């Protein structure tokens, strides 16, 4: 029973971090209709940025989070027009080209990181790294609890932004129909750029947490790219609430499979479950996608 509870809590905690990545990825997909294969690499770059900044400045990685989120939001903001250009090319399979483009970007970033920093695993040491907290009678590393609480807070703020502000309305409008939004005077390209910036910022920020919970290495993003796909497809394409549920589900599945079956089987079981979801709930767990 103790192990079961421990596994459940671990699953929920890690699911909390997935939620932030999932929500950003899902909204960005919903607005731009581009699958960003580089999602894992934004995580990796966020973690490495925190690592190197920490090495040189000795500032705690957790305190660097606002800076990293803003910096990568800026990177996303500056980079998005390039992706947009690929999609706008007058070509029958422009969407496929965008897919190939982000896949290439992912490979390039991973390869560059490998060349620059090698295979070594690095540890991102934070002020919470050595601490534990007691949660419902279960001992959990403080960094995991903090990461989850922070992620949930950020996700809630993002939800508030999407559902309670004027700009949030324009984002949801652009996600549903850019042409109609355009008739209302909304610049679809500007919205895409904004959303991509938010998504890259959120993802890099999550990278700092992931890096400090596990470790930092050039390939660390790979599994999260696969996770992001799971969450978007299982949650329903472009659905905010679906992404939250799927993020939590993902955390629980990976936690339980790791403990009771073995870490090597996480992907096998995860994608089998995704297969079942696609067969029986093709619009996502909550039936809200399209």
């Amino acid at each position, binding site marked *: 029973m103790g192990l079961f509870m421990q596994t459940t809590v671990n699953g929920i905690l890690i699911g909390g971090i997935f939620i932030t990545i999932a929500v950003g990825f899902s909204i960005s997909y919903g607005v731009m209709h581009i699958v960003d294969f580089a999602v894992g690499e934004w995580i990796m770059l966020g973690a490495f940025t925190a690592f190197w900044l920490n090495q040189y400045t000795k500032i705690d990685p957790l305190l660097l989070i606002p800076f990293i989120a803003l910096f990568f939001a800026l990177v996303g903001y500056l980079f998005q027009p390039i992706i947009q250009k690929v999609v706008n090319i007058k070509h029958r399979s422009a969407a496929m080209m965008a897919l190939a483009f982000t896949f290439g970007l992912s490979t390039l970033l991973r390869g560059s990181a490998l060349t620059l920093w090698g295979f070594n695993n690095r540890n991102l040491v934070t002020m919470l790294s050595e601490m534990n907290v007691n949660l419902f009678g279960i001992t959990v590393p403080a960094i995991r609890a903090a990461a989850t609480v922070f992620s949930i807070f950020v996700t809630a703020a993002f939800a508030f932004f999407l559902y309670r502000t004027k700009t949030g309305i324009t984002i949801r*409008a652009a996600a549903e129909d850019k042409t109609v939004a*355009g*008739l209302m005077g*909304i610049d*679809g390209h500007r919205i895409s750029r904004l959303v991509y910036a938010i998504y890259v910022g959120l993802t890099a920020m999550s990278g700092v947490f992931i890096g400090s919970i596990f470790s930092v290495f050039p390939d660390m993003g790979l599994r999260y790219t696969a996770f992001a796909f799971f969450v978007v497809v299982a949650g329903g394409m472009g659905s905010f609430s679906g992404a939250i549920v799927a993020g939590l589900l993902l955390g629980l599945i990976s936690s339980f499979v790791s403990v009771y079956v073995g870490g090597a089987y996480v992907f096998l079981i995860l994608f089998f479950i995704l297969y079942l979801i696609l067969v029986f709930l093709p619009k996502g767990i909550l039936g809200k996608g399209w």
Partner: protein
Amino acid sequence: MTKIMEVEDLEVVYGVIKALQGISFYIDEGEIVTIIGANGAGKSSTLRAISGMVRPSSGKVRFKNKDITNSPSHLIARQGLSHVPEGRGMLTKLTVEENLILATYNRKDHAKVKEDMEEVYKQFPRLSERKKQASGNLSGGEQQMLAIGRALMTGADTLLLDEPSMGLAPLIVKEIFEVIKRLNQAGKTILLVEQNAMTALNTAHRAYILENGAVLKSGLAADLISDPEVKAAYLGGH
């Protein structure tokens, strides 16, 4: 009267199909002008080319003495020209209220926005009752009202209405057209595209009849109603 819009030799091509073969017309400020014609005559293409939803292959659109040909649709919308597209263009996941707020995104005249919002709810009391409902759950008539209300909320003085009667019960159609007349009396300029030729001619000041992407006839709506040729082809032939 001053011409608020002038369209000159407008041509729209989809692939190899010429939807519009160079049509010209104008709208005076404060007018209701209607474009009628059969399915596929090029009515919707005309509106789409004006509002920037499709790029015309040639021709010119001038609005308030400015060339808006080839401008992106969001910039055209900000000039005070609002297009209510065919099929109403609902953002189904947004609530009624959010749809209306969305339309005001670029407006800075906040006091006037508030006034306009009250006016829209007064014009369409049913929208006021359904403020918090997703617009996808509205009936066809309510969606049409929302689409028109939203166009008004952009602060537009000129409306392009594409088949506002489509798929609606006769009673609702009557209501919608009364609204159109009221809006016009309140100073809005309206370009109305309709298949329902009789209702459109009864509402409009002037009309253009489109056939195979070209203007077949034009004139005062009242004259066209009694034109034998128009009667035979578009008004049920009595």
